[in-house]
């Protein structure tokens, strides 16, 4: 074999090896991100035999991400952050209190908040859906009020989406906005009531201080969780259950040490109203309603 052939052979071999590794990466990436249709169908059949009806369309094929986020917030840090967003206020039993421009705002250390303008009364009367343009405008207003419209570079990509917006017979408009982390739903919801474009009332919870700690974790996925559900109902002897919705969420946990955690979880809802939520890091059932 002459030098020319050796060179050509080396080039071809290297090119083939590169292609093989790229294919392996793509293939593994798909495997680690999605369950196959066959796997989903097999799980559905296994669950069906175990007393749980879970249609393949209910079982998420996408696997969860692997990030856990946290942020430690000191007393001073909390007050400083709230003052930065809302201006001067006082602290009562750990909560930030502000009375300003005829409205009262209270924010707890778990970021649960309530704001009411003086003379506010709850909306009443017939409800009608508002236009998308109005939804978008009011969403921006309430996010701006809470300082959530600012672009902050943090590991957790936080976004918001309006779930509902209704205009009442009383002339007020109520919108409900949910918080998402990395595109995954959280249980943090903001409810705001407007009179025209004037924010009259807002309550709920949102990540007013964004997590900056980014951990990676090996997670269970919905397949592991549903096998645990099968075991749970076989032990507890429940009647046949029908899964209505299975989705990944971020469980927002606040502890008394001032640390907020965003931990991946899986919510399983059944047609009879039963809801089970599992921690995807430990695989333990953390909430049962």
């Amino acid at each position, binding site marked *: 074999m002459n030098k020319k052939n050796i060179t050509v052979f080396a080039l071809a071999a290297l090119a083939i090896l590169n292609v093989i590794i790229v294919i392996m990466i793509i293939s593994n990436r798909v495997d680690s991100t999605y369950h196959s249709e066959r796997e989903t169908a097999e799980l559905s059949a296994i669950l069906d035999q175990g007393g749980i009806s879970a249609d393949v369309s209910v079982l998420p094929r996408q696997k969860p991400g*692997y990030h856990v986020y946290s942020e430690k917030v000191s007393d001073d840090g909390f007050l400083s952050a709230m003052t930065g967003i809302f201006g001067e206020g006082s602290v009562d039993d750990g909560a930030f209190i502000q009375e300003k421009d005829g409205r009262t705002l209270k924010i707890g250390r778990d970021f649960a908040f309530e704001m009411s303008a003086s003379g506010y009364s709850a909306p009443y009367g017939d409800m009608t859906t508002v236009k998308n343009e109005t939804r978008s405008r009011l969403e921006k207003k309430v996010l701006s009020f809470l300082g959530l419209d600012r672009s902050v570079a943090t590991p957790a990509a936080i976004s918001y989406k309006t779930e509902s917006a209704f205009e009442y017979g009383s002339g007020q408009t109520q919108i409900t906005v949910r918080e998402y982390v990395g595109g995954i739903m959280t249980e943090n919801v903001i409810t705001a009531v407007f009179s025209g474009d004037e924010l009259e009332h807002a309550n709920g919870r949102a990540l007013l201080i964004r997590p900056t700690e980014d951990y*990676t974790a090996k997670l269970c996925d919905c397949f592991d969780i549903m096998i645990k559900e099968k075991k749970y109902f076989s032990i507890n002897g429940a009647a046949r259950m029908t899964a209505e919705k299975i989705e990944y969420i971020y469980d927002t946990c606040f502890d008394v*040490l001032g640390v907020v955690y965003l931990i991946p979880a899986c919510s399983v809802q059944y047609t009879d109203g039963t809801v089970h939520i599992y921690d995807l890091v430990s695989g333990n059932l953390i909430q*049962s309603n």
Partner: protein
Amino acid sequence: MKKAADTVKMALIFVLVASLVCLSLFYINLFGGDGGYTFTPQMDEAVREQLYKASYAGKLGGELVSPYFIGLVGGSGKSGYVSRAALVYSLGISEAVTELMGPDADFSANDEAPDFIDYDGAYIYVRFRTELPRKVIYYCQKPDSIMDDVGDEYVYDMFIVPSERGTTAYMRDLRGNNFTSFTEYRINENRFSAYTESGGDFKFEFAHALTVDAAKTLAGFYEKIDKYEIIPEKELSAMSAVVANGDEIAPETVLRVFGQNPEKVTVYEGDDGTTFFDEGINVKISKDGSITYSALSEQYGIGISDVIGYDFDEGDYTVTDFVGAALVLGERLGVFDSGAFGTAITCCEEDGNRAFVAISYVYDGFSILSGGRCALEAEFGGGNIISVKCIALKAQEYDGKTEIDELDWRIRAALAEKQAPFYIDFIQSELNDRLYLMPVLRAESEAEK
């Protein structure tokens, strides 16, 4: 021309080799090894445990797990006390002591370790509202709080005594035993932060820990702190209370708490007015308002997981879960909605898979219904709740009745000199279905009768 072609080929080979190396590293990083996970199941478990405990503590108030009383007799004649749990809770011990003793207090910062404060030369007595297992209370302390993981003991009060070898701390449980002593006792302001950041085992800053028969070494201080002596925060009002069950908690609610369908159970009326449900076996509401639940056996009890909302294997429940389940039951049965009364966990016994938890009513630190009756008693076994006894009270101050004068630490110090061994107690009496609690000052001789 040929030379240029060779150069291009060599460049291509170089690029392909570099690409191969990079892709291989990328593949290994993504899918190889353990992935370098930085949030482990153990960390997750620690976070969850804190959160569960936080929710339980929320039902009883953080003050319960914080020192209720701190008294000092300083080496230079300084003395004082603070018994406002909320103050201690909000300030932390060192700040509370500083406020108590003033800027000239007989303790100072340790020059070699500025994070520490030495309480040299002062007798310090710390009492908690109730005895609690460390596992229940350690987490929710302020950074310099005294109860940070002092050990696995049940702790009710603590003595800090100056000695020739250095300051020594002694702890004991409610029964007055299991003393543990430590030398070179110091409070570390920053230990808690260090603990939470490291995630490791936290040891309270007692150097050279040792266990001795403290009763033999407490001479000079033990006599000053009589276990029957109780110092109230301020004036105490007489109290009255009524049983809330029956009037405010519907039988249907009680049945649902114990997992029974009110529409399907059978109701029986006993001769003494007791209402029995489900063939008189599982739930009964007595005429005096007390509620009793008993399972036929461990396996037929209510699942602990059904009450606390999360699930473990049978043997994996810890004292935290047992206490938590008792608190959840208490909340659902109206135990904590008792007006002026507070609540305290007054008993928590765990023996492997079986456990017993009692929650009592307290008023300003005094246990109420001391005659063997608790607000709620729950027994656990086999991962289930196998028995519950409950009586929910509604309390209110009884207008126009005697108030007892405040006793301050100086009076306490005088009492400690054995000049006047008095203590304070409540007289309990029942009249017209109300329970009356009257604070009185008793002499020791009277108590012995």
